């Protein structure tokens, strides 16, 4: 039994929209952090270097 062509087309179309939806909250987070001038990943990196919780290069 094969999938109906219209079902297949709709799956492809909706999957492409899903890629955008997956990315949306990640992009929104970086946008808000950028606007606020916050760089939490740098703070974390500095913290780990000072406390020695992260491997040194």
């Amino acid at each position: 039994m094969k999938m109906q062509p219209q079902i297949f087309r709709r799956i492809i179309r909706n999957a492409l929209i899903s890629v955008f939806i997956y990315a949306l909250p990640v992009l929104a987070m970086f946008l808000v952090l950028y606007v606020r001038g916050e760089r939490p990943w740098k703070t974390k990196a500095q913290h780990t270097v000072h406390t020695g919780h992260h491997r040194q290069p």
Partner: protein
Amino acid sequence: MKIVESVFQNLSTWGLPVLVLTLGVVEFSLGLYKKHWDNNERILDIVCYTVPKLIVRPLVAYCGLKFLPLVLPDFKGAFEWVPFWWGFLIICVADDLTQYWYHRLHHEVPFLWRFHRTHHSAPYMGMAMASRQNIIYTLFFSQTYLTTALVYIGLGYPALFAKGVKSIITTLAHSSIPWDKPLYQNKWLHPLAWVLERLISTPATHHAHHAASNDDGIGHYKGNFGNMFFLWDVIFGTGIITRKYPSVYGLQHYHHEEWYAQFAWPLLKSSKEGSELAANGPMVADETSTPQEPEPIPHTTAIPASGHIVPG
């Protein structure tokens, strides 16, 4: 915040099983399973509830947390810096949209249907059948792997809350206790109902997905795929909102296959003639599981007094 944290931590260990058990006892006491919960169904429901929790999930978590450091050594805790609420939102979307697709493909790709059929064969709704799945469906369940990966990369804390909220919503959507009914009966609650039924799965929308027939205009087994969020069905046009509950659940041509065949197909087959789970059974036996193009929800919809969605 400590209290909330403690609630969600306990929910992820003993809290959810207690909630499920309590609801199950209430449902059973109220006679909501009617006379459908026979011995075969009972064994299947209990096996499906216990095996994933006791074997599959701990095994995947253990192997995943051993395997991930080998393939992604630099990613351990790499995203611990993500602010809590952003982490919560990212996980809610990533987790539930992935499950929406996993679920939808099992309905729309004929080859996959039989791995998900066990969840739909129950002629009743409730806690007993909420975890009822074929073992192969459970093994490849994307969320199990996603959670392990999220914990590894440092998003375990927001994942704890996202998973907790999701568990409550999906559990209550499967319950035979229609907690959403007062929202439709009281006019002053209609604005809240309008938002909730589009945002999350409710008993009305999810029960429609488990209906045995679409003929009554309430059942919609070819859609309403959302688990935590119903929003995906609204966006992709796969949902129908009626604010009513189907009168018959399950599959139109259910053969009451042996519990072990439903649990472990294709490793174990059914002896029932004509069953989709039999050795020479059809991939999709009846109209119930034949994927067809559902009517999409228009983006502008209105719900009249009858409760049925009509184009706005």
